[in-house]
């Protein structure tokens, strides 16, 4: 008899947890923002932005998070017109063509002429607005590496150990794939083979890779040029530095858009405008550890060294070649 009560209790508690997760607090309109999980985590910019936006919008902001940008897109395409998303935030510029083709987002109709976006971004997309950007690079520990590699070629030829992310799951990993394709083009297979000799492991996401690096498991980790700023500002630690490669660096622009199936398109547009405000840009830069897209944001000096000379890759070319490039990576890195 005891066991029957046990099961009964379990069922009740299970049902309770099912129903509470779907409860909606009150009658305010709800804006659902799909994004990636490090954005919404307690140390990311999500919670602060939620508070700031709710203070002005007279609405309730709810985040729904996926592991990272790539799984965010996959989720959107699986959900199709049944999605609850009003705003999609955290895809990057390389994923824009695909997202538009699939009809998952709508035009924003915002006038960005009054927003002093950095000229280098050269932004004129009809659907997406940028909210931050960063350059991919390899981070190293100054105490361990006295003479850091000054080019990709030098890194590949060295016997330094490297951790990077899976290009299928994580946007930095995909960034490295594009970067290597840009530098080596038809010779990318050999570059990957060379890199696989230096690779400690390929992780699913950025945080696993970075945590392993911080524990001293590799000489270099793939990350952003802004990563040292985090150590300098939050930990007051000058130990970590970002490599500068003579071939140039690839930028990643993170973007947001209104979902094509949003029930609250006006509120969603309001959120996009909010993302581009000076204060918001400053919060994002210092919590998401990326560079602001506006040119008039005051940031600590630690951010100054994060700019690099940019290689350019058109999102359409990346889109066209993605599957082929993934295959190249998969067979070369899989030995």
């Amino acid at each position: 008899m005891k066991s029957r009560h046990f099961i009964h209790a379990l069922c009740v508690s299970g049902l309770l947890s099912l129903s509470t997760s779907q409860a909606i607090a009150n009658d305010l309109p709800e804006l659902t923002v799909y994004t990636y999980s490090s954005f919404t985590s307690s140390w990311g910019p999500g919670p602060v932005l939620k508070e700031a936006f709710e203070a002005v919008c007279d609405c309730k902001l709810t985040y729904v998070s996926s592991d990272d940008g790539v799984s965010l897109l996959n989720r959107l395409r699986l959900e199709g017109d049944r999605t609850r998303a009003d705003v999609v935030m955290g895809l990057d510029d390389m994923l824009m063509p695909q997202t538009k083709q699939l009809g998952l987002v709508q035009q924003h109709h915002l006038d960005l002429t009054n927003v002093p976006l950095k000229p280098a971004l050269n932004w004129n997309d009809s659907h997406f607005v940028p909210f931050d950007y960063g350059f991919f690079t390899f981070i190293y520990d100054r105490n361990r590496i006295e003479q850091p590699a000054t080019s990709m070629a030098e890194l590949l030829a060295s016997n330094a150990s490297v951790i990077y992310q899976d290009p299928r799951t994580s946007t930095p990993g995909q960034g490295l794939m594009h970067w290597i394709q840009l530098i080596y083009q038809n010779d990318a297979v050999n570059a990957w083979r060379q890199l696989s000799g230096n690779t400690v492991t390929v992780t699913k996401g950025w945080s696993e890779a970075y945590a392993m690096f911080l524990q001293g498991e590799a000489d270099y980790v793939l990350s952003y040029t802004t990563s040292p700023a985090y150590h300098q500002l939050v930990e007051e630690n000058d130990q970590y530095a970002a490599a500068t490669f003579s071939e140039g660096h690839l930028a990643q622009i993170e973007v947001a858009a209104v979902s094509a199936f949003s029930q609250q398109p006006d509120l969603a547009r309001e959120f996009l405008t909010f993302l581009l405000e000076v204060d918001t840009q400053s919060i994002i830069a210092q919590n998401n550890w990326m560079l602001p897209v506006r040119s008039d944001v005051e940031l600590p000096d630690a951010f100054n060294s994060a700019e690099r000379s940019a290689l350019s890759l058109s999102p359409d070319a990346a889109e066209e070649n993605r599957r082929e490039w993934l295959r190249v990576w998969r067979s070369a890195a899989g030995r």
Partner: protein
Amino acid sequence: MPQAAKLNSQRYSQGLTLVSKQWLGLLSLGFIVTLSLLAFVSLAGWSGESAATYLWKDPWFWQVIRFSLWQAGLSALLSVLLALPISRALALDPKLPARRAFLRWCLLCFVMPSLILITGLVALLGRSGVLTPWLSDGWRLYGLNGILLAHIFLNLPFAIRVLTLQWQSIPSAAWKLSAQLGFSGWQRFYLVEWPVLRGVLPAVIGFIFLLCFNSFAVVLALGGGPAASTLEVAIFQSLKYDFNPSEALFLAWTQLLLAGSIYVMLSRFGRFQWLAPAQSGQSDWIPQQSLSMTLLGRIGYVMAWLYLTLPIMVLLPLAKQANWQLLLNTGLLSILSRSLFLAVSASLLSLVFALSILSVWAALRHSRWHMWVSSIALYPLVVPTMVLSVGLYILMMPYLDWYRWGWVAIVLMNAVVVLPFVFKQLHPRVASYQQQYGRLQADLNQDRFTCWRHIYLPYLKPVLLQVMAMSFVLALGDMSIFAIFGNDDWRTLPWLIYTLAGSYRLAEAALVSLLLLVFAYLGLRWLERSA
């Protein structure tokens, strides 16, 4: 009425009674068949894409197949080889301490949610693991090493249980005879012990091979990159990472073909017993062992204890450092109750499936029909879980909000996946019931409900509780079904552990692993007590 027509109408009315009395079982059968047909149809038809046959020419594809087979083969062989001396010692060395406890621990290890073990292995042998400083510089847990360590941990205990039972089944008369004839140790092994083992070894190796071939969580967590990927993980990745259904379809067919043919071969090897309650050795006559054999057995026994307990023990000190507040903030309590709710529902549902299908089975007369019914209940063994889940997911997407209803699919799919096991365990009991009470029951002419409640279920009760507990533990540890239907805001315990370990919160991962282990243990205690 002419004879033929009379016969026909009789058959017809028999058919009607079958449908009216066995509707639940027929519904279960239909459900399972439809589910799998639709899963494949939906995979094939997704956006009109056909299977990505270009993969034939992709070296990566062959690499994945090679690796899947290679790691499964190694895991199976090593598990069985290591199990041999240990089982022999368990069966023939009466001085071994704590044998009962060991065999019970083995049972827990075999069904242990693999995420618990993975956390333990990372804490023990990962880059900053407790034992890592004593290993050579080039040691890497991620890749084949980690996969083998985990697979052997999960399957060695199973092999030990089967082989121990096998050794114990040698009658003492045979031992006595071999002693009277003055056999040497080797002769005795060859003439007395080997014939008993030979019957089960291929089946045990094959079974472990199949389990490792279809392994998901271990390879996902410990694979460490594209170099060490199995088909099951590749299917998951091509869908959830690449969103490439045509490639997933091709990989799924490949896995189905390979796993299916392995299963067919395996089913020819015969059967074995492993769930029987562990005996504490024969009370009867046991032959004298040579000193070296005894020593080998004892060393193996001690090593097995260490191997099977260290990855769990290491969690205890680690869990003490866990940040409770962080866990409570991530909603540990609701994740826990959700996990328990899903696992209990799945195991209850699989019991309903199995009982209703067995009831159809019993009502049918022809052995050909019996075979069909059994093969429907058993076929989820052959079809990779991943294939079914993915097909169902895509199929129902236009009509269902998976975000809201994913949990229903998790319960359903877990029930379907454990069904073969439940069916196999219940089948002999139901068959013997039919033999002993079938006629009696017909004579008593009670209504079905009374009969089920007062005779049938009480008769099945010991086995029912046993399989219920086992399927509960299996569903509790599920990773692969959740990987498809779950989402980040709605995690279960294993997925929480995976996320925590992924972000290097090993202490918290250890604590949650222990929690999961406690519940798995409680489930199994129930099993052993009632068996």
